[in-house]
């Protein structure tokens, strides 16, 4: 049984013109200098104030709106898009939008691009897929509140605890009986063999579950082997992380701290070459997050305002002001992520030069839940694969075209993604 058999890929809903991934691996080396070394999907909930979001100008005259102003220092390495659409199905629905956001398939009936990248062009990373959340699982949020789809209608949950995510990447400080790496390799090999011989007469659904289990085991097996034989790069020495006590992980007052820690975890993991594709999820759609409780921020307010409540500003000036302030705050967090990436040297520049970030949300405007004209920001140099410092109105293009653009900028072989996808956005793609 091969890991990436065609049946599995097709069932996952991968769209068009899929070049066999083996070709990708060899051609990728040739193109490595021109495509992004890593991709981060940075999600925030409940849209923007569409009417005032758009930047004006382009290139040298690019002028950011109030909601995007925190990105001023980085605007020459950003692309702002107008016109992307999630398509008409479920238009007006938060969950409908969340399902289509990274899958470009109605009802989330397909694999999301982050997994597509993780199993192809970024499959060599020890932790192929990193999914971190800041209060993304709040109050047991599950299902369509998550945006990462490992298969049709099959989501996975983000890790909301930065310390736990960190330990999984960098090891627990003191294991009671630490095992020698060689023994670990023997054990994980035997675990995989044990699962492989677990063959019973199963239906398609059960078979697929076990296939996923085996795939997961194989990834961990490779990682354990790699860890036992390779030394981490020098930049990876002494990674460390602050902590938020587990009892406070979901306190609204700590949201900003948790998010910052997760940004650190993501950047550290990527700086150490442990991951190349990650999804960073702030809260979830129809967010109950009370951002007015974040201390020492422009949002601090005595009156509790739920994020989703503010998104339905309607005729209320108060709510609109709060909503806009929140959107600007999220853009400020994106700027912070970009700052962190810029701090790590890479090649002839920094990690930021070789990273591509997709900053996205599941509806265009929280007040009307529109799925058209989404506010899209691409950030990072992507190793030159994207023409940056731009504001482009693409007219009307389906989300899959944006995802295909990200894929191609990363050197992945997809020329489309999901429903209604025509191809990558030629206006900004350079590879």
């Amino acid at each position, binding site marked *: 049984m091969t890991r990436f058999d065609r049946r599995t890929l097709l069932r996952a809903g991968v769209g068009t013109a899929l070049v066999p991934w083996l070709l990708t691996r060899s051609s990728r080396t040739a193109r490595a200098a021109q495509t992004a070394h890593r991709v981060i999907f940075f999600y925030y909930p409940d849209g923007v104030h569409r009417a005032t979001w758009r930047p004006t100008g382009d290139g040298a005259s690019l002028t950011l709106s109030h909601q995007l102003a925190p990105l001023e220092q980085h605007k020459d390495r950003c692309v702002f898009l107008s016109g992307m659409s999630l398509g008409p199905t479920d238009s007006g629905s938060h969950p409908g939008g969340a399902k289509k956001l990274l899958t470009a398939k109605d009802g989330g009936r397909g694999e999301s691009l982050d997994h597509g990248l993780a199993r192809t062009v970024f499959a060599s990373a020890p932790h192929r897929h990193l999914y971190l959340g800041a209060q993304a699982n709040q109050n047991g949020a599950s299902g369509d509140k998550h945006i990462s789809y490992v298969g049709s209608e099959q989501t996975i*949950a983000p890790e909301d605890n930065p310390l736990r995510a960190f330990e999984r990447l960098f090891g627990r400080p003191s*294991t009671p009986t630490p095992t020698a790496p060689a023994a670990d390799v023997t054990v994980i090999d035997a675990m995989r063999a*044990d699962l492989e011989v677990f063959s019973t007469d199963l239906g398609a659904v059960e078979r697929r579950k076990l296939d996923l289990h085996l795939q997961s085991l194989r990834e961990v097996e490779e990682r354990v082997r790699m860890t036992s034989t390779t030394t981490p790069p020098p930049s990876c020495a002494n990674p460390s992380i602050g902590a938020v006590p587990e009892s406070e992980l979901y306190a609204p007052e700590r949201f900003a701290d948790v998010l910052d820690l997760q940004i650190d975890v993501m950047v550290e993991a990527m700086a150490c070459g442990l991951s190349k594709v990650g999804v960073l999820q702030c809260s979830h759609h129809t967010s109950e997050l009370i951002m007015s409780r974040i201390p020492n921020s422009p949002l601090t307010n005595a009156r509790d305002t739920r994020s989703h409540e503010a*998104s339905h500003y309607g005729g209320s000036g108060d709510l609109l002001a709060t909503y806009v302030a929140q959107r600007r705050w999220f853009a400020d967090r994106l700027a912070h992520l970009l700052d962190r990436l810029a701090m790590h040297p890479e090649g002839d520049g920094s990690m930021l030069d070789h990273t591509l970030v997709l900053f996205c949300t599941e509806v265009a405007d929280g007040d009307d839940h529109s799925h058209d004209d989404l506010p899209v920001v691409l950030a990072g140099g992507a190793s030159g694969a994207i023409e940056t410092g731009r504001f482009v109105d693409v007219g009307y293009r389906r989300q899959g075209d944006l995802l295909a653009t990200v894929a191609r900028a990363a050197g992945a072989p997809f020329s489309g993604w999901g429903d209604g996808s025509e191809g990558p956005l030629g206006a900004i793609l350079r590879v």
Partner: protein
Amino acid sequence: MPGSAERAANVMTRVRSGAWPIVAGWVVGIMMTACPRPDATAPRPESNAPPAAIPDPPPGATGPELYAMQCASCHGAMGIGGVAPALAGWSKGEAVFVDVVAARMPVGRPEACDADCARTIFASLDTIAPAVDTRCDDAAPRWAPRRLRLLTRHELTRTVDALLPAPACDEHRFTFRPASGRPASVIVAGSFNGWAPTEAEGGWPMTWSPVRGAFVLTRALEDGAHTYKLVVDGTWMEDPEASDRAPDGFGGFNSVVEIACANAAPPADPYRGLPAEIRPEHFPFDDHVESAIVTPVHVTEHFEATRELAARVTDRIEDWVSCDPADAACSRAFVEAFGRRAFRRPLETEEIDRYAATIRGAPDFLEGVTQAVRVMLASPRFLYRSELGDAGTLRLDPYETASALAYFLWSAPPDDALLAKAADGTILDASVRRAEADRMLEDPRAAESLGRFAGAWLGAEKILTVDKQPATYGALTPEVRASMLAATRRFFTHVALEADGDLDTLLTADFAFRDDTLASFYGEAPVGGGFAKAPLASPRRAGVLAHGSVLGAYGHSDQNSPILRGKLVRERVLCQVFGVPPPDAGGVPNVDPDATTRERFAQHSSNERCAGCHRYLDEVGFAFESFDTIGHARTEENGHPIDPSGTLEDVEAFGAGTAESFADLEGLASALAASDRVATCFTTQVWRYQTGQSDTVEDRCTIEAIADRFRANGRNVRQLLLDVVADEAFVRRRAEP
């Protein structure tokens, strides 16, 4: 974009494959009703104008597309009904259909679908809303599919608690490996036993462990430092394996062992790092089978957990085997003994061979055991419980049946008594299953497991994490939250298991459980220690509906939420499902110092478009207004008296046209308890929990049959559980393609 026929076919495929709740949620995402925001601070002049945001169907839209965009949100996917009556099997003809739709549908915006639109929909009505056979008498029963069920985090924790309990902090193991030969007697003598050098005098004899090739002794010791020596065939000597020594006052040294357990934290759960289970919409429990997949994160956590668990085995290897590892059969003996408990069944010869080979391939026996245990505890044979059954008969085998019983009632592995009934095959008999279940319900594991069921069913667990304004609602401390949830769980298990109670009691009880934390929170007299049954005064005599855990879980941080509380009743207690609110439904109105909650939400009933759904939600939700967002009782809000009266419409089915008035929450609870639907819904929830499935249209008859028996038994909860276990559906499976 897929064509309408393809989409309709996709919808139908999904129904057959049992994912209709997902489809319903998907399809009803398109909203046809629109509701402007209630905003108490600004005037609302155009509250009835159609919003520009709702997309009109594109020209040339087909019947199924028109239905999906304009009707499905209320009439349900496949026309099975929802907030509005079912259209499946429409028998009143085209003329009536067209007339009604053209004049009145969609609700509040009839101009959106005129006669042409209505005719287009009607032309495809057979496909859009196929007739569902409502007769259940001749319906073939529908079994759950053959499958593997991944153990939930909680089940895994309970499984290793039974299989490999964490060593007690104060237990210390002495080990003595003689340098040469084997002494006849080794005694531990020290400050803990008066330095007695012989067993007769009170010294502690060590036992020879052939597996370890050493003398061992495990004893619980009190906190503090203990000094001791070993007396080996009469000769006093230090313990070579002691971690510390101290001068003995005679020019030599004593061995020292230090115990510090009085304030030690409880042992960490090896599975604490596992991600939370995925719960699809309308599935309240953590054991949804189809959603449970093993990701690399899961594998990593399993891998790490097995380190510690393997150490628990080797630390007490004598508990498992006493053979000499040099003997080839010793490895097999261990694998058989351990495997039988770990996999909840005897192992096949091939399995024993394979794991024994792992042991023998290692440098020494204990290292081999470590490796084999790690592999076995990461094996699908451990991590999943099998419901594959026999491929020929499609029935669960005896050991699968034992596991099904144990995990359903205990969330834990089968005990020896169950395994014995599996070994002799008697467990396959329905009356034996029922008798076993009866026995199992007396065990504390049942109380713990069913308490968790209750917390999940009602969503009361959320009380632990739901946010409340610290300034106003600081009284809801973490201790109070924990006590609230524990009280709800305790109440449920008391009614179901101790008092042989029924569903009515769950909904209308005039008693609850209190500990001192809760008594203090509610301003009641202390109960003196742990949980005790306490009588309630009005308006709290409404069973679980008046529990702090429920009231708090369904309230905002700074105000009540009649919508959330109404939705709780409709969705979790009556299993009546709503679609997604329309885009400009708006958020929650601001707290207004001059208006009551009921007044602030008045928009919902004054606007016909909103009222379509909100008449079912708000009216019910207002009954809870006698309690604030953390469960404290109140009689006035902002100087206005609370009015908790209302009307419970269409309790049996949307569109039924019934309405019952109630004066307060107690009245609402009584009305709910009297309905047939509440019994069907509770049955459905238990069915979901036991099968780990979202119910589909095709499961309706199976569930109705159980619900009928439930009603016939006076809605006795214990009998329901026993019936589920004794039913054929418990052991029969269907083949999956």
